[in-house]
Structures are given as structure tokens and as C-alpha cells.
């Protein structure tokens, strides 16, 4: 992971804007920001962002590479798309934040233990395995991500909700031994691996 980071630093020197433009989803739109601040004021989790999207766009142009990529700000995005529809310059802000988060994650710079980063990985690994999300295994993986003891504690705390869902037919304990899945699992896995390979090649991460 750190190899990728070193390679990126060597390649782009102090031109973080160029790095973002070439390697981050919709990064080429960053310089369109006119610093009006509507995105910052529209985010439901706004107060929890160390740096608002508005600030992040300026920091990218100012070359604050480490401050941006090591920040947990982008991981506060709930994907509500409020910033996108309100941006007067029509920047795809949500996608850029997702792209920055993904890039920081791939370089190994995203904060360790950041909970949204962790569940995003658990979720993706879960869905790629069978082609469909296994909600029970995903929930258990989330509860137990910080070890067995904490997992039991988490599971106990959510026991009432879990039993309620089972009773309502919205959580199936049998999913643990199988559950819903696609028929062409190997095709899906190969397809996803190929897509990653192509994208890594294009972004210079291969």
C-alpha cells in the first residue's frame, strides 16, 4: 500500500490537483469549484466534517495532499446527493468525495479503523463473494470487526432489534449457512477482478 503512495508522490511531486484529476473519480471537475460554500451548508453531517467539501476543493488546489487524503471527512458522506443538486456549478461533489475516499483507501492513507471505511470494505467483500449481499453475515462481520469480545457486546446490544427483525421475517438466521446467491458467482468474481485491473491500469495503480 505504502509503495503505491511513494510511487504517487514521486510521480506527481507537488501537483496534487493533477494527481486528483488523473486518478480520482470525476477529479477533473475539482477546479470548477467557485468556493460558494453551498455544499458545506447542505450536508446532513456537515458539522462532523473536519474539512467541508468546499474546503477540500481548495486544499486540493493548494496541494495539501496529506491533509486531504488522511482526513476522515470524505467518509462522513451519507450519499444523500444534496450537495450535487444544489451546486451552482453542477460539480458531482458526492462522486468526487467517494472517489477521494476510495483513492485514500487504496493508497493506505485513509484513517485506520475509520468505521465507514471498514464497513464499506466488509460490504463489498460480502457482495462480491456470491453476487448478492448476505445481510446476516454482513451484520455479524460488522459487530465482530473489533474482536470477539466487542462483537458479543455489540450483538447483545442489538439483540432486541435482531429478534424483532427475525420475527417480522426480515432477518433469516439460516442465511449463515448459505442464503441468497447468484448462479454465475465465478463469472461475477472474474468480471469484478477484470474491472479492477482495467481501472488500476488506467489510474496508474497497477
Amino acid at each position: 500500500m505504502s509503495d503505491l503512495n511513494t510511487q504517487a508522490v514521486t510521480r506527481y511531486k507537488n501537483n496534487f490537483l493533477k494527481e486528483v484529476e488523473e486518478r480520482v473519480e470525476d477529479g477533473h471537475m475539482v477546479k470548477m469549484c467557485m468556493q460558494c460554500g453551498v455544499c458545506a451548508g447542505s450536508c446532513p453531517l456537515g458539522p462532523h466534517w473536519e474539512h467541508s467539501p468546499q474546503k477540500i476543493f481548495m486544499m486540493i488546489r493548494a496541494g495539501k495532499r496529506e491533509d486531504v487524503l488522511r482526513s476522515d471527512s470524505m467518509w462522513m458522506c451519507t450519499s444523500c446527493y444534496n450537495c450535487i443538486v444544489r451546486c451552482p456549478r453542477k460539480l458531482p461533489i458526492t462522486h468526487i468525495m467517494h472517489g477521494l475516499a476510495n483513492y485514500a483507501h487504496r493508497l493506505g492513507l485513509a484513517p485506520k479503523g475509520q468505521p465507514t471505511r471498514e464497513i464499506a470494505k466488509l460490504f463489498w467483500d460480502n457482495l462480491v463473494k456470491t453476487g448478492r449481499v448476505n445481510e446476516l453475515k454482513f451484520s455479524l462481520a460488522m459487530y465482530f470487526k473489533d474482536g470477539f469480545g466487542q462483537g458479543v457486546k455489540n450483538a447483545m446490544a442489538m439483540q432486541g432489534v435482531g429478534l424483532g427483525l427475525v420475527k417480522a421475517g426480515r432477518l433469516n438466521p439460516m442465511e449463515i449457512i448459505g442464503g441468497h446467491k447468484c448462479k454465475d458467482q465465478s463469472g461475477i468474481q472474474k468480471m469484478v477482478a477484470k474491472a479492477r485491473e482495467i481501472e488500476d491500469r488506467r489510474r496508474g495503480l497497477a
Partner: protein
Amino acid sequence: MAKKQYAFYPGCSSQSGASAANFVPSLELVNEKLGIQFNEIPDWNCCGASIGYGEGGELPRLVLNARNLALAEQHLPGQDMVSGCPACWLATRETAERLHEFDSLLAETNEALKEAGLNLKGTVKARHMVEVLIEDVGFDAMKAPVVKPLDTLKIAGYVGCQTNRPFGIAGESFENPQYLDKIIETIGAEPATKYEQKVTCCGGALAFSEPEKAQKQIRDIVESAYDQGADLIVTPCQLCQANVEIYQSEINKKHGTKLNLPVVYYSQLMTVAYGGSAKQAGLGGQLIRAEKLEKIAG
């Protein structure tokens, strides 16, 4: 009259035994009364949902959705693809539009799809169930099958995020869309027109990773519905439904509140208004029982 045919993409949460298991059953009577035929896309896969970006990046996410589009194109030619889940719809529509706009992305996508023996031309339109109701059926036709108007109920129409943004329903505003209130009116209930949390985010996937932050959102969403005198909340979104219903008890535990407001899908309301039973409406799937609705269903 021949039924309107659609390629149906249920999505993971709508499968049996999953968190929105009662949604698809509640579409049955609605579709029957409105002349809609859903043909499930064979072997469909997950759309990647809203947090797929973290590990998945862009192309793997697009390719997942392209596979579903390719399967629909191949097996159900000429049919629009319909999802009842806003996250599924958003991801699929975004994919369809990006691949249409950028030839290079379509070429890369097809290179990856080949691994699963598929190819996408890009002819399928991705739509939300609400679009089908509003644009293909229309409010008058939606009203025709009503035999039990829900005229004793005041309902807060909670649209949430992803049915509304970034695409939304054509002709509606992002800040104050009217269609859900109109659906409520169409089936004889009173919409809480001054419900101010109509398009507030429930926290989405961050309800798992940042429970305190998401539960603050959820508390506002529920309390505002109470303030408007609503008997229940209705939503077009599976994750909104789950988050806003499931975490009320958690909020009560932490803050000593007494939140206990039922949260249902529009299709459940419609099923009851069309004379369906509580079972047909999937009301057994509520964590907070919708007793007033059950009573109308009889």
C-alpha cells in the same frame, strides 16, 4: 387489456428473509390492479449500494450494474428495467447514463463483462417503481381501484434522498417534491403537507458505522411527523424504511423518548386501499405495527 411489461430488478434487501422482505409482496395486488407485469431479471446481482465506492472504486461498481442491464437487454428485450429500491435504481441509472455518455467507459465495461460471458449495447432504460406509477399509470388510474379510501389517516410522506436526488422524478423539485403527497391523497388519506423533514437524509449506510449521527437524523424525521399529527410515515425507500423504523427503539433507550411511529411503503398503503388484506400488504413485516392501517384492512 395487455399488461405493461417490465424487467424487474428486486435488489438484495427485497429478497425473502431480507430487511425489506415485505416490499415485493406488497406490489402484487398493486401490479394486478394497475395492469403491470414484472419479469424478474434472471440471476441479477447486487448494485454495490451507496458504500460500494469505498472498496469497489468506479469501474467495478459500473460493471456490476452493467451486468444487470446486459441480462435485461438479453433476456427481456424492449422492456424498461424497474427497481423498487432507490439505491438499486440510482446505481443502475447512473451506470446507464455514464456508459451512454462515455464510449471509452462502455468499451472498458464490455471488456470486463466478457469475463461473465455478457455484452452490453446500452439500450435499456433504468426506472424507479414510482416513475412507473406516476408516468405510465397516472394518478387517475391509480385512484380507480380504491375501494377502501384511507380517509381516517394523516400520513407524513417521507421521500428521503435517493428517490429524490440526484435524479429525482421528472417535473418535481428536489427541495419539496409533491408526488408522494399526491399518492397519499389519491388513496384517500390526508398528507401532512407541512412535514418539514420530507427530504432529510436518514443517515443511509452510516446508520451502521456512525449510529449516533444517523440516529440524530432519524429522531428529527420521526419527531417532525409527530409534530404534524401524522398517524404514520410512508416512504418509497427500503433503507429509509429500515433505518427510520428500526432505530426508534434505540433512540428511546438512549434519550428517554417515546418514539413509536409506524413506517410503511406506499405500496402497502395502496394494497390496503385497493381492498387487500394486512397479509397481502406485508404488514406483518413491521417492527412497529401499523395498527390503524391493519384495522382498515380488516
